[in-house]
């Protein structure tokens, strides 16, 4: 009985969660003019992939997708490495001023990005780096959020695990790579999703720093679809659907990985 109730709650909740996505998909399949009808039409007449075709025409779609993908993957890989290493230092390597430095990391999360844009732009300009991939990627490499998340995860790893390795004469790099990292795989997988999302959805910074269309990322391309006076919501929704898919794939991959790693490490 309790189990049935639990199922009911979970399924009902899932439907509520699924709704916007289903709605976006349906809107993207709806022909022009019938979009955003009120009340909404869940079986639109003349449904088709027209909006997706228009999406492909309206911008150099594959180029933009490739840009977003490689920047997102590169950013994720770099964030994982830099954050995990710094997190290890904050969790396991006592040094003078460690608490203060960690506070600085946290503090960087507390200033709204909106006011950093202009100073950062001027800095990039000084180094002659405006309108480059590097300028889009560089500010994402260090993630205070990631350091914080992974530090919490490493602190949860029982110390006797690495202390056993110390007794075996292993150095910190080896403990980090072969003891700690495997044990925090769930957290790494979680962070990978957020790291990718942060880069993938990033809008304001790429908007101001890039000006050559060949460097544009997906959010910039999608924003271009909103004309000044008219908006074709089915195309916008098609773009949104396309933009969600890679993260969804990454999530499913990461989720599988989390489960596998938990089973492997024998923690459960």
């Amino acid at each position, binding site marked *: 009985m309790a189990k049935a109730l639990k199922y009911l709650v979970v399924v009902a909740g899932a439907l509520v969660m699924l709704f916007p996505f289903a709605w976006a998909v349906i809107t993207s399949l709806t022909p022009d*003019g019938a979009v955003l009808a009120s009340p909404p039409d869940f079986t639109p007449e003349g449904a088709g992939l027209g909006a997706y075709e228009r999406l492909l025409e309206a911008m150099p779609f594959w180029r933009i997708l490739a840009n977003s993908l490689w920047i997102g*993957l*590169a950013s994720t890989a770099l964030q994982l490495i830099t954050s995990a290493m710094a997190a290890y230092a904050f969790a396991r390597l006592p040094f003078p001023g460690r608490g203060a430095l960690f506070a600085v990391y946290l503090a960087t999360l507390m200033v709204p990005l909106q006011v950093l844009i202009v100073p950062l732009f001027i800095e990039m300009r000084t180094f002659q*780096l405006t309108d*480059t*991939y590097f300028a889009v990627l560089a500010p994402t490499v260090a993630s205070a959020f990631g350091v914080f998340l992974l530090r919490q995860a490493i602190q949860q790893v029982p110390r006797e695990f690495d202390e056993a390795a110390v007794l075996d004469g292993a150095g910190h790099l080896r403990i980090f790579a072969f003891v700690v990292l495997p044990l925090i795989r769930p957290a790494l997988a979680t962070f990978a999703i957020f790291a990718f999302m942060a880069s993938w959805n990033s809008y304001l910074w790429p908007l101001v720093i890039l000006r050559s269309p060949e*460097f544009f990322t997906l959010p910039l391309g999608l924003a271009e679809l909103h*004309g000044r*006076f008219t908006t074709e919501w089915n195309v916008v929704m098609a773009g949104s659907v396309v933009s969600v898919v890679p993260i969804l794939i990454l999530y499913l991959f990461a989720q599988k990985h989390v489960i596998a790693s938990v089973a492997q490490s024998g923690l459960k």
Partner: protein
Amino acid sequence: MKKTIALLALAVLATACSQGSATRDTTPAEGGKVTLRYFTFSAAPDHEKDLDKIVQAFEKENPKVDVVVETAPYDQYFTKLQTSIAGGTAPDTFELNYENFVTYASAGSLLDLGTVAGDTAPTGFAEESLNSFKHAGKQFALPASFSTVVLFYNKELFEKAGVALPTADWTWADEQAAAEKLTDKKAKVYGDFQPVQFFEFYKALKQAGGTFLSDDGKKSTFNSPEGVKAATWLVSKVGKTMPTEAEIGGTADYDTNLFKSGKLAMWHNGIWQFAGLKDVPFEWDVVVEPGDATKASAVFHNSVAASAGTKHGKEAYAWAKFLASSNVAATTRIESSWELPPVSDQAVLDGYLKDPKPANRQAVFDSLKSIALPPVIKRQQEMQDAVTQELGNAAAGRATVQEALTAAAAKVDALLG
């Protein structure tokens, strides 16, 4: 696993840096060719090809200049433009609308075109249009395009309700009487749609015979009997002949869809809607907006300016002039219904009338006989937001019209002071 990631990271870093070194700049390319950047909001996404046409024609005439077009959606255009000006990477030439022109001109961000014009003074422009982009007696930008607001109407709804079609002689009273007859809430048909916001208000104010700012521009003057009349005119439609804010529910392009679905009889909107209405399954037409004490039509005016810091002033001027007044540019704009060129040559403009839809295209030119330009101050956006917000309070019944105007006037005066 980690090795793969590390290798991947390295490869990626290498790519990123190699791209970085390939920074494109505006320094002269091979053969002394000048690269001229042009930043615009009005071309994307529907008129990029039309702009391309103009660019190619210009480059043919000026083989030493290579125009590079950069676009951004209007919502983010100024964010991007300001950041690049602050960072010293302003585009050589860029688009500016009339409301923002004064801010940029008075900040010294624009090149005085008179200093680079030489003996090729701008010609062929409608005089009034050209003067709109003078600041302190200097020509800081050239008008490139404009559009006006007219009254759209659905002929079939009028005929069904047995109401006489709008004419150029209509006043507010005629519009209101018709709107009341046309509104059929059961059938979800509305008689009228005119957004309650700054741009409609300053125009209605002029129609009522009032003024927004004092002549010296130092004080607001819209908190007047005319102001009350204008605001009341806008606000009184809400919920009666026009859907309320709650009914609209913030749905994007609600009014466009309402008109397109044949459930809106009269619609105050800009001529940029013409292209989008080509295929609607009912008869529609336009007429000059009804007035009150007088007629006044809103005009949206875009210009092209050159950055104060550009190294290519002469080329920038040549491009601005070409984009604004050349025959190619003017006919391209007209043929694609991409706003109107600010030229004085009636023969060019006549091309606009050839398009059969809407039948009364002449109304667009008629509306120009008495125009209302928006009041412009240095803290423009804040003023627009304040007025829109207070009018919104009145429309939603959270304040009386008089209270709203008093509050708006106080805010605007503070911004002026």
